[in-house]
């Protein structure tokens, strides 16, 4: 069951990472746990950004979760915490996409000193919700699944067509029998007896 939990944008400063924007979908946790989980995940995200070099992508396993992080060369970073089954490629595609979006909407000078309240970027929750289902959200995965389905249908159709006419097994049996039954029409052996006959 694929699941995304937290999607956040950080700025990797010289000493520490600043959280610029975040969104979370913690509906799978019980009400009382949510606060703790949120804190924990934010902390994990922050740490991982600090530990990741610029222009690098990583996917780190953390207990039951997978943290996908991408730190751009300009020190803008995105973190996505998901479960183990979520396809890595889709995760990183999502991160790249929101970072592109973010850098387009929010000017670079706000990154260094911004915080959650000062940055105006509302697209995150929508993205998180959309990408809960990787197959639908990611056009590439969607195409791949469609393609796989089509291939199976195609193969079945081809098989049906090939089955038409005489059954292959029958033909194989018949032709095997034919080739085994071969016996030369002209046997030279009998000619050797001719010396014994009286002309």
């Amino acid at each position, binding site marked *: 069951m694929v699941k995304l939990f937290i999607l956040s944008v950080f700025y990797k400063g010289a000493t520490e990472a600043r959280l610029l924007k975040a969104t979370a979908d913690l509906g799978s946790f019980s009400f009382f746990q949510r606060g703790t989980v949120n804190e924990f995940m934010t902390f994990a995200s922050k740490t991982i950004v600090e530990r990741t070099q610029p222009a690098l992508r990583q996917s780190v396993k953390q207990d039951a979760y997978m943290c996908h992080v991408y730190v751009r060369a300009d020190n803008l970073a995105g973190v996505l915490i998901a479960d183990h089954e979520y396809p890595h490629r889709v995760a990183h595609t999502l991160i790249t996409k929101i970072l592109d979006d973010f850098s387009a909407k929010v000017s670079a000078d706000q990154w260094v000193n911004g915080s959650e309240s000062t940055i105006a970027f509302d697209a995150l929750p929508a993205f998180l919700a959309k990408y809960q289902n990787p197959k639908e959200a990611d056009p590439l995965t969607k195409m791949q699944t469609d393609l796989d389905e089509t291939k199976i249908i195609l193969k079945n159709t*081809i098989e049906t067509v090939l089955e038409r006419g005489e059954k*292959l097994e*029958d*033909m194989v049996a018949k032709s095997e029998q034919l080739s085994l039954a071969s016996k030369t*029409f002209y046997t030279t052996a009998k*000619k050797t007896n*001719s010396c014994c006959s009286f002309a």
Partner: protein
Amino acid sequence: MFPHLKSARVNLQLLQEAACRQLVQQLTLIEGSKVIVLDDAMIGPLGLITKPKLFSDRGIRLLPLKPEIRVPKEIRNIIYILRPQVSLMETLVTQVKANMLNGRQFHLYFVPRLSCLCIKQLENKDVLTAFGRIDELPWNFFPLEYDVVSMEMPHSYREVTIEGDFSCLFQAATGLVQLQRLYGRIPKIYGKGVQAQLVWEKAKQLAIDEKTLYNADRGAIDQLILLDRGIDLMSTLATQLTYEGLIDEFYGIRQNQLSLPGEHFSSYNAADMANDYGTGVQERLLATSDRKLIMLHSGEHLYSELRNRNFNEVRNVLARKVREIQLHMSVSREDQSVQEIKVLVERLPQLMKLKEATSVHTTIAELIDRQIKVDSFGEDLVAEQDYMNCEDIDRPSAYIDDLIARRTDLRTVLRLICMQCAAGSGFKERVLTHYKRELVHVYGLEVLLTLRHLEKAGLIRLQTESRAYAVLRKTLRLTLEGNPEINPTDISYVHSFYAPLTARLVEHSLRPLGWQTLKSQITNLPGPTFEDFQVQLIGIGGRHAAAAGSKGDGYMLHSRRVVLVFIVGGITFAEIAALRFLAAQEDNNVEFLIASTKIINKHTFLDSLMSS
């Protein structure tokens, strides 16, 4: 219309199209609604010239010639296309009288030539006035394959030797002139045999009027070899062992079509079966629902691979093909990329066609195998082979005596007797008397009449001094030990160890010296040996024209020669296979165009001679 007729030098589609044009020309001369009635002998040949589409496009129905046929009232013209046989006139008269209507016209076309006798018969029966057009369709040669033409005259050998009717030889000569008109003059002619010489003399005579022939440039055909069936009767009587030969002997191939009971074949969808050629004239007129009609010509790739091979080789080829198909089909089950699937889908129609063809031929091969396994087949074959090896031929054969005593089918007995006769180049008198006595005892006095026919035809005779067959067997290597049936190196594979004499003669003519080396032995065969030239007439240009002509002929040596081999009296599929084998050998540098009065086999040949 018939793509399988196209080939390199001699394009037989021209022949088919010319014939088709003649028919259309005649049809357009007749106004109003029409119906065409064909006699049985013409149904097949017509299918070789046209497709039913030609008629359906013009709203013309095709009907077989039967006395009880009634033509619907709206049809204003009834066209008959018949062979010029007086016996057909009876049925014709009955039909005309029954279908006589005011305003209705009858038309009659003889193939290939008008017959005054037939017209006189119509006059005698007072129906001549009902006929509008009476004309001929000069179709002498029908194209069967890109390298085979046939006159479709099954009884020509009988007519000449037994009935003394030489008209088919005249037709053969006319046909030769027609071919030269289409494909150019033939510069060099070799021939052997009485009938062959008669045909050639007549053809020369007819061509005298054709000035265009002599002035034309070198044509597509370089040489003509004319052979009389009578010089090699052994090859017609021997059991053929090629795939096509066996099919013909057991089931009969009519103008490239084979009809078999439908139950042997897996049920199929009519839509699946639609081959590129659609249905033919024969199918429209003769098909019944419980029989399957199979097209057998080079248009089907698998058939052209199988037809000329020895049957034992065919077994292996079929097994290999089935395995190939299995491989292709199993490939589809693995995991594949879209590209691979695309390639597979593109190949699919071809694969399906191959599967269908392989299925049909495996079934046919199975049927033949069953026939071969019958004891009598094997025993007859052993007896045949003994005769062909000249074993024990100067005494009455115990095997034949046994067959007679058992009252076996007369045709089988007579075939073996004729083979023994051919092997010994005649019987010793006491042997012949012995056989005659035994035959009469068992089959009755009527058999003497049949024997008389065979004697007239030259199949049964007394020995003279020359033992032509025995001598030629050694000098021409007619029987050859050790030639494998699979991947053979010599034409003798067509009868597993015996090479047809006619094919050996052709093989020798391809050598640089031609028949020179055989001069002494060849004279042993009945009939004259002749050579002839048709040179280009020197026009006013004088020397230059002659020089140009000879230079043109000189080119023959470098490119492939085209040799027209015409066996007057019939040819077997085995002989055709042997000739094709020769053509396939690079060293020979030759292409054959094979012609005959009819493609025969041991059964049809004997039946024609035995019937009264």
